[in-house]
């Protein structure tokens, strides 16, 4: 493959959604077709580019774009196996979410603004995924915050403005802590490039105190987006956003960016050995375990469907951090693969929640009696996602939990099994009642606010097929976990490279 391709591909992947986004801003509101064409063109082009990238990285090729911002400050986009995992996830889900959003916002206002920021958001996310050093990561991390804010505030109601304000207060404060940590680390080490196995293992022992404080700063900054307790409160508040934005927040971009950052810091900056030696993994493990249990307990008490799903996200995303906090390749595989699995399962659930709200006006769990008979395909997809979250084989979630548990056993940290068991019980506790209501309770006489779309299916096609497709992904990721290029196989590849096996 030519040299130009190797240096241009990472930048092209970022720009492929950035440029359509900029043009979408300039479009007039009624230009529905051109906007749709631009959106889909960007999404498909990005998908093709990512396909090339996957193949190249699998063969061990190096893709790197390096731009000199100022002397000593480089903007580096570098594709390694871990970035490919995240890039692929967000690119595939972005395409699906775009289709969904076009259907969802058919008759709503300010669509040029919405899709413009939507594209910026995904550009920032792939920027985060491809960031090759800490500076680049911080830059795209902050851009993601800025690009998401208008989406959360999109509806313009007082609740939306308030939710957006809370989101911003949390994420900007976190971003500043991350920035301070990154600058501090840079004064100790020079440019902090992400390297498998970490870059700090050679640091003299008298700097270890500073390294611990810096880790705390970085973790606080990343923990806000990853919704680690006690930094999670913004996530349930931003439920006021439209359903496609919730999917973006929970599955494609924001929460994932935080979790991905934690993986980067643990594996590629500190190195998992040093992090364990400094006692940092123990801190991370405590936080993650607490978050997993706490999020699930709160999810039990929510009647709002999206709120219940939000607290479920708080809990599930911390599986990724949990995997990173246990020393050993098997736990690493479990954490990494959950980055993808949680994404496809949670986006299915949010799509379905959006469909119930748009088609029937159902927003609460207590209103869901009999929805399975009115909307069988949507509810089937919802059931796949929910059972996957609980960890029922052969759905994707089972694979994550299996590897996390096995990793805990391998590292002789048996408490991981306790956390997993407790969480699984709680997952079942808040998902099974929904499934029972949906399938076995009688239909109500009247739905809260029913829309009839002009279609022979249960709802509009653009709303129906995205969750069905992602539900199929959940099944495939579990059933074909051992196939080449499955998320699991890719996570194994990453773990092999991180541990030098």
């Amino acid at each position, binding site marked *: 493959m030519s040299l130009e391709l190797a240096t241009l591909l990472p930048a092209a992947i970022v720009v492929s959604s950035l440029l359509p986004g900029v043009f979408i801003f300039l479009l007039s509101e009624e230009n529905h077709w051109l906007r749709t064409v631009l959106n889909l063109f960007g999404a498909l082009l990005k998908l093709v580019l990512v396909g090339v990238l996957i193949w190249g990285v699998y063969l061990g090729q190096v893709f790197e774009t390096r731009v000199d911002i100022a*002397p000593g400050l480089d903007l580096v986009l570098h594709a390694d196996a871990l970035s490919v995992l995240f890039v692929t996830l967000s690119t595939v889900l972005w395409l699906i979410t775009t289709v969904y959003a076009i259907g969802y916002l058919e008759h709503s206002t300010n669509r040029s*603004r919405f899709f413009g920021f939507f594209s910026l958001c995904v550009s920032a996310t792939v920027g985060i995924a491809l960031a090759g050093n800490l500076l680049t990561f911080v830059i795209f991390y902050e851009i993601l915050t800025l690009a998401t804010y208008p989406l959360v*505030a999109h509806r313009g109601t007082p609740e939306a403005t308030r939710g957006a*304000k809370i989101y911003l207060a949390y994420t900007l404060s976190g971003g500043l802590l991350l920035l301070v940590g990154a*600058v501090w680390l840079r004064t100790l080490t020079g440019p902090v490039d992400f390297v498998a196995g970490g870059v700090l293992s050679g640091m003299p022992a008298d700097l270890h105190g500073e390294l611990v404080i810096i880790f705390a700063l970085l973790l606080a900054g990343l923990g806000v987006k990853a919704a680690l307790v006690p930094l999670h409160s913004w996530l349930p508040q931003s439920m006021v956003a439209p359903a496609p934005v919730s999917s973006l927040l929970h599955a494609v971009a924001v929460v994932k960016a935080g979790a991905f950052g934690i993986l980067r810091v643990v594996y590629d900056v500190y190195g998992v050995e040093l992090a364990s030696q400094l006692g940092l993994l123990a801190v991370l493990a405590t936080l993650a375990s607490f978050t997993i249990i706490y999020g699930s307990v709160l999810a039990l008490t929510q009647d709002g469907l999206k709120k219940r799903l939000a607290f479920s996200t708080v809990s599930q995303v911390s599986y990724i951090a949990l995997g990173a906090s246990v020393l050993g390749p098997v736990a690493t595989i479990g954490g990494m693969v959950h980055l993808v699995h949680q994404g496809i399962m949670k986006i299915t659930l949010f799509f379905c929640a959006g469909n119930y709200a748009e088609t029937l006006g159902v927003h609460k769990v207590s209103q869901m009696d009999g929805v399975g008979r009115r909307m069988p395909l949507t509810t089937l997809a919802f059931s796949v996602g929910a059972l996957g979250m609980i960890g029922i084989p052969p759905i994707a979630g089972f694979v994550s939990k299996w590897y996390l548990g096995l990793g805990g056993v391998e590292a002789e940290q048996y408490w991981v099994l306790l956390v997993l068991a407790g969480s699984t019980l709680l997952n079942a506790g808040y998902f099974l009642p929904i499934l029972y209501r949906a399938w076995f309770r009688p239909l109500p006489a009247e739905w809260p606010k029913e829309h009839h779309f002009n279609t022979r299916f249960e709802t509009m096609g653009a709303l129906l097929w995205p969750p069905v497709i992602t539900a199929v992904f959940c099944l495939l990721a579990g059933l074909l976990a051992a196939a080449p290029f499955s998320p699991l196989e890719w996570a194994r590849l990453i773990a092999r490279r991180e541990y030098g096996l």
Partner: protein
Amino acid sequence: MQSDLLTDPLVLCIALPLLGAVLTTAVPRRAVLLGILMALATCASAITLAVLVWQYGSLRVLLGGWDPELAIGLRADGLAAALVLMANVVGLGISVYASGYYRDRERLGAFWPLWMLLWAALNGLFLAGDLFNLYVMLELIGITAAALGALTGSRDAIAANLRYLLVGLLGSISYLLGVALLYTAHGTLDLALVAEAIAASEALFAVDATALVLMVSGLALKAALFPLHFWLPPAHANAPAPVSAALSALVVKAAFYVILRLWLDLFAPVTGLAAAMFLGMLGAAAVIWGSWRALRAERLKLMAAYSTVAQIGYLFLFLPLLAATPPGPPRDNLLAALVLMAVTHGFAKSGFFLAVGLVQTNAGHDRIDDLGGTAQRLPATTFAIALAGSALIGLPPSGSFIGKWLLMQGAIESGQWWWVIVVTAGSLLAAAYVFRVLSRAFGLEPTPLRFITDARTEVPALLLALVSVAVLGLASGPLWTLLGLQAGGGA
């Protein structure tokens, strides 16, 4: 020689706007056309100047053929070229905007000659090679700026600008006293020669130190360094939008430029860490106090004006770091970061004020709490405010993000970690005041039909804001070359 002088970009940068002032006074009916033409020509000569400095390092020209001790000398080094380039691009943006902003002929007739005169004085100040020339340009800037600020003719504006004029005169006199002391002691006014004399004569330390105090405090008054900022918010908030932009982005920066010149070139042997630390403390107070007042401001223009107070404060934070860092790549990075922040603020604040002017025209007021619908009717303007705002906060990828990154890095490296807290707190406050405005942009009002509603005023605001965010933040490397600094790693 004489024919060379007429085409020398150093001379053209000052002569062209002067000519513009004469022409727009002489032919007021064609003021807009002439003004725009002269603005374009001036901007082109500024770009030529920057290219020449880029190639040759520095330029120098003596007017009138006198000896260097007495002649009016013009010179341009990297620092001057960077600021001239910023001022002239911003000036062009302001000119285009003004051609669409002023609708009535009477105001227009008064605006152009004064604006061109101010522009000439700004370029004259950046390119001045001697202390007296600097004084003349400072006075000219002060008078034209106050006259421009009073153009709205409202009672508040006249009161604020009369105060501004008097404060400016006080500052100039203090500066002039310092110049007189230096001239008596060293017998020359040329910057380079005075610098040599100060370095050579340790016996005159007391005189030099007194001159330093007099000159810097006079200039700090003009640069609105806390607690001498009291005159700025009313003056900047009551001026017409293009004038506010020029005042906040350029005029205040001019006074800071002279401080920097004196501090780094002239008085380097006299200034110590303690003096630098004192100015740094004042800068820190400016950051916190200015940002806090901006957050509490009820009017958008007042908010922007207080934000200028805070942003000037950031520039002074660099002085103690420069004093504590030995020459080498880390110090060069600090110097470049300082210029980068000043230049970024120039673009961001001018874009901000221009956009705010459009909001004010559209809504008929600029009370932040009542702006909801207006922000929604003007998408491009709101965008400009958002972009400029993110540069004011220091969010990536703006130039001030890189500036703040290097500022914090320098603070940690030189052990002065407390400035990191100041920068962090200032950024949080800035985010609060910027998003207090931007959160008004989301409401239930109907969707705007198109992105740009009035190209002649909206495009300059948007482009200036965009430069501060995208261009300066992603490609600030050339600034190092222009300043003649060694591109060193961060180690």
